[in-house]
Structures are given as C-alpha cells and as structure tokens.
C-alpha cells in the first residue's frame, strides 16, 4: 500500500507488524488511547537492600528467559559498556530470541554482532544503528525485523504498550543502594538519563548498573527508587573519554561556513526570529558555526532565546552562561561542557525523552520550537529526508530526534552540502524516507537555499533579502550536473527493517543489500 510519502509498503509487512502506513504527520492529532501498565514487585520489607552481586545474579532474579525484551540507553555513546556487558552474560546463559529495545546502537556495540548470527538477538528496536550491527542487519543476519524509530516514537511505543519491556537496564553514573539514580558525580558522567525515563516507568523489572555507589539518598535523582528493582555495582559502566565525542570542533571548512552563513541569514529573515524565540541545533560543523553566527546577531539586536532544546553541546551552554539563552532543556549531552553545565547551571534542565519529543503525550517540547537546524544524508525534491540508510543501501545512521523536531518546529531547516563525495545529497528520490517532506521547510546548501513551496509565508517573508534562493529542483540539477545522475541502489527482496513514523505507522522499509551488478 502506498503511504503519504509515496512509498509502497508491502502487505506482508503490514500484516506481520500490525501497523498502518504513514498517513501524514498530524493524522493522529487528538487520538485517545489507554497507556500501558507494568508489573510491580512490591518492596514492603524495611531491612532489605536492592544491591545484587553480579549481572548474572540479577538476570536470574529478574527471571531472564528466551524471547524477552531488554532495554538500554545510549547516553554513554561510544563509551558505553553496559549493553555489551549485560548481553554477554545473557549469551553465556544460553538465552535466545532476545529483542533489544535500545535508544540507539553504535560501533561501541560491534563486539556483540555475533549474537545476531547465533540467534541470541533476533529483533532490534533502535533509533538507528551505526557500525557492524547496522551492516549485519542490512546483510540479512537478523532473523526478525529491525524497527528504526525516533526518540519521540520510542517513548510512544513504550508508553502505548506496543513495546513491552521485560527488563530495563539503566547505566547510572551514580546510584545509591536503593535505586536513586543520577547522571553526574560518578566516574563516567553522561549528564542526563532522559532516554531511560519511559523504560523505568513501564518495564516489569528495572535494573540499575553503576560503578559509583553513593550514600542514600542520592538526590537530586533523575530516576527514583520507586521504579528500580535492583542495583548492581560493576567496575566500569563507560569510558569517559569516549562519552563526549559527538560535537565537532569549530570548523574552518569554507563550504560549511558558507552554509552556516546562509542558514543564519535565513533564520534572521524570518518573522520567528524575535525576542523569546526557541531553537534546536545539531553538533555538526555547519550547525555549530551557524549558532555562533546567530549569537553575534542576537547580541547586536539584543534578542534572547527563551529556550534551547535537544542534544546539547558547548556552544549552546556558552550562550546560556552569557544570558543570550534563558533556559536549556536537555535530553543528551555531546561534550564535557554540556555535562558540567546540566549538573551545575540552574537554568539547564534535564527532561525525559517523552517530554522532549513524544507525539502521544499531552504535548512535547518539540511542539514549542520555532527553529530546528538539522542535517541529512539525502534530501529529495519532495523535501523528504533520509538520515538512516547510506547511499550504498546499508543502515548507517539514526533518526534521533530528526522527525520529531521537524514535525514540531515552525521552521525546520536542513543544512546539507549539495554533494558528499560523488553522492548528490539533493536528489530526485531519497533511498529511504525517514522524515516526511511535509515537515521540512527549508534546505540550505552551499549552492543556495530552497524553500518548500507549501510555505508561501516563508517564501514571502524572505524574498528581496539578498538570499540565494533556488527551487529544490534547481539544486538537484546543479548536483547532478557535477556528479551525474545516480542510479537507484540495487536491493534484494527481503525486508530487513522498517522506518517507523513518529505515530507508529510505517514510513518506509529497508531491504537487504545485494552486490552491485553491471547492466551488461
């Protein structure tokens, strides 16, 4: 069945998943539903402790068995040790058919890729998958389906009961013996535990794994004792040198600086740029440069940002310190400065992933955004974006909050160079659609800016301001004139993964890769 972004979703996938096709970003606005519930094993005895000696013992206490769903967070990013540590024990116990529900997976999880081949892990739900596991899924080595869903969609899936977590594992930089967890003050701080909030509230069993036990009560706690069944102390939950590697250094790349300038000029030309505007940006070189350019104009015009959202890095923290930003709300930290800021600056707040981006609660922060500055692997002439599947057809990226913020923000800007190597970023049709074009308003490239034709208000507001405006087709034609017109990736037939829309519908499917064959 063809969905609202023109993708043909195979009937057997709709049948196997019980899902509907994507019918538009606002299709479920006002939808009423009953949230899920979870099992609680009460603790009334007042002389107990929740400390358990080992991962093995806690798995036994939680009743680990074949077919369970285990959840993890990725706040330790490339430095995470918790997921592999738990899964290695699960594997040693001979458990099979596990579904991993992770907020994201990356190359730090390469060591457990063999568990796809031996059937320990048979389903994966994640924001996306970088590294060897992504490649393995694309090669068809996962027995079941991989579901790639945004941060908001993950909260929705858990809260609605679509995904029921049997055991949630929460790597906690600090914990007390009764399960009050915080993300600062330990050996491997990660700033916030936003992605684990829904896991703690909706999983049947919740296990905290820490390397820093602190005296009771560990306050303020981001996840509290009423949700946590067991606490396990291990030697190391993360490698601090690899946790905060996400943010780019200030760039000197002229192409990125040019795009940053175009982006800032566009932002300033819109009616949303005024006292009290709100803003989210990424941590790529062009995004960070555009934040710096924007700050200069904010100083000059005495304009302040009411709040900044998202994954946070140093440039946004600097503006908070300077007073140009009033409030930061934070679901993830990309560098040590952000981790320190959320721990110490009273205007820098922890929020949950649900508060950030969930379309199925009573209103997420993304709905209050004026601007979001995003990146993409591909943007097509329908303004659809792809942030998950590489141009070689291999799963290589993650949705993160891309579709959530794009849907919520009044002005969604995607910054993308017109080509990356020989791959035209601006193309006729994306390899895979992850964010629908209806939510993407502006595309900024090094060869000019294209505004989504449906945003006649933005077209009107930004004309005659000296901006290098072009149509999206013109940008594509420039790209193709340099690279040549690309052929479509040759996929196999088997569907290995689905790209889930924020509302749980199917945006697109990802098929198994196959070896390239010449026409003749």
């Amino acid at each position: 069945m063809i969905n609202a972004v023109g993708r043909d979703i195979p009937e057997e996938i709709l049948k196997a998943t019980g899902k509907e096709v994507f019918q538009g970003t606002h299709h479920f606005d006002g939808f009423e539903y009953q949230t899920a519930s979870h099992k609680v094993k009460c603790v009334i005895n007042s002389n107990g402790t929740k400390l358990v000696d080992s991962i093995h013992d806690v798995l036994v206490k939680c009743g680990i068995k074949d077919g369970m769903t285990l959840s993890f967070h990725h706040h330790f990013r490339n430095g995470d040790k918790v997921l592999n540590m738990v899964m290695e024990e699960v594997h040693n116990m001979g458990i099979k058919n596990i579904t991993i529900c992770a907020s994201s997976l990356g190359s730090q999880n390469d060591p457990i890729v063999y568990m796809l081949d031996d059937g320990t892990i048979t389903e994966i739900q994640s924001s996306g998958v970088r590294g060897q596991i992504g490649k393995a899924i694309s090669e068809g080595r996962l027995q079941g389906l991989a579901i790639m869903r945004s941060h908001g969609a993950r909260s929705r899936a858990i809260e609605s009961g679509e995904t029921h977590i049997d055991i949630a594992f929460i790597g906690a930089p600090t914990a007390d013996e009764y399960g009050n967890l915080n993300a600062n003050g330990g050996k491997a701080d990660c700033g916030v535990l936003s992605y684990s909030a829904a896991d703690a509230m909706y999983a049947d069993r919740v296990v905290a794994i820490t390397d820093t036990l602190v005296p009771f009560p560990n306050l303020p706690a981001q996840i509290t004792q009423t949700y946590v069944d067991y606490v396990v102390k291990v030697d190391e939950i993360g490698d601090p040198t690899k946790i905060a590697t996400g943010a780019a250094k200030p760039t000197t790349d002229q192409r990125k600086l040019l795009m940053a300038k175009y982006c800032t000029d566009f932002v300033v030309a819109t009616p949303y740029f005024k006292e009290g505007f709100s803003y989210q940006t990424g941590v790529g070189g062009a995004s960070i440069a555009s934040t710096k350019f924007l700050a200069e104009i904010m100083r000059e015009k005495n304009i302040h940002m009411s709040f900044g959202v998202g994954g946070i890095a140093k440039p946004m923290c600097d503006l908070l310190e300077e007073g140009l930003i009033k409030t930061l709300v934070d679901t993830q930290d990309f560098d040590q400065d952000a981790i320190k800021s959320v721990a110490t600056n009273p205007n820098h707040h922890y929020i949950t992933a649900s508060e950030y981006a969930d379309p199925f609660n009573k209103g997420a922060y993304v709905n209050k955004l004026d601007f979001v500055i995003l990146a993409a692997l591909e943007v097509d002439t329908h303004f659809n974006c792809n942030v998950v599947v590489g141009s070689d057809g291999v799963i290589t990226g993650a949705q993160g909050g891309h579709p959530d913020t794009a849907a919520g923000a009044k002005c969604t800007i995607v910054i993308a160079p017109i080509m990356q190597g020989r791959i035209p970023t601006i193309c006729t049709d994306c390899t895979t659609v992850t964010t629908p074009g209806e939510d993407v308003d502006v595309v900024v490239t090094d060869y000019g800016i294209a505004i989504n034709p449906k945003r006649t208000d933005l077209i009107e507001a930004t004309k005659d301001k000296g901006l290098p405006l072009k149509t999206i087709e013109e940008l594509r034609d420039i790209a193709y004139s340099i690279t040549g017109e690309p052929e479509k990736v040759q996929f196999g037939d088997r569907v290995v993964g689905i790209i889930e829309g924020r509302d749980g519908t199917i945006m697109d499917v990802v098929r198994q890769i196959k070896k390239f064959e010449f026409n003749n």
Partner: protein
Amino acid sequence: MEIKKPAVAGTMESSDCQVTVEPGEGKIDFTLDSAVAHQFGNQIKKVTLETLANLGVDNVKISIVDKGALDCTIKARIEGAVFRSVDQYKDLPWGGAIK
C-alpha cells in the same frame, strides 16, 4: 596503444580513484571496486571504456578502486596510468587521444 608494463595512477583518497593497468589477454578486462558502485557503477564502466577507446587501447587488464571520483578524475587517472605503462611522459596527445 599497447600496454607495455603494469602502471598505476591516482590515490585512495576520498573523491579520487586508483587505476591500475596491465598487459591484457586479448581483450579489455575491467574490474571495479567503488564506494558508489550502486549509483555510478555503470557510468564508471562507460567512462572507462570510452577513455580506453579514445586512447586506442583494446588489450588491457584495468582495475579501478574508486572512492567517489567524478568522471573527469576517472578519465584523467586512466590516461595517466596508460601513458605511464608505455613510459611516455612528454609529447602527450593533448586534444587528440587525450580530450
């Protein structure tokens, strides 16, 4: 032109390609390892065969390791490798076989 000895041109840097030519076995034997094979594999083959035809080469083993080079780069690397294989470093046929 007849390929006299193995020769290489180009690098493995992004947006370049490395072309290796060797004496053939009576035909053009083409192998490609490209980061963008799915999108541009057929185009790269076409450019390769056209460039070899312009040079008058029809008996060669040519292998290209491509890191996303544009057509103009691929053509230049093939020409470079072929002329190196015959030790011709001056009086190159600019505007002739090289166009």
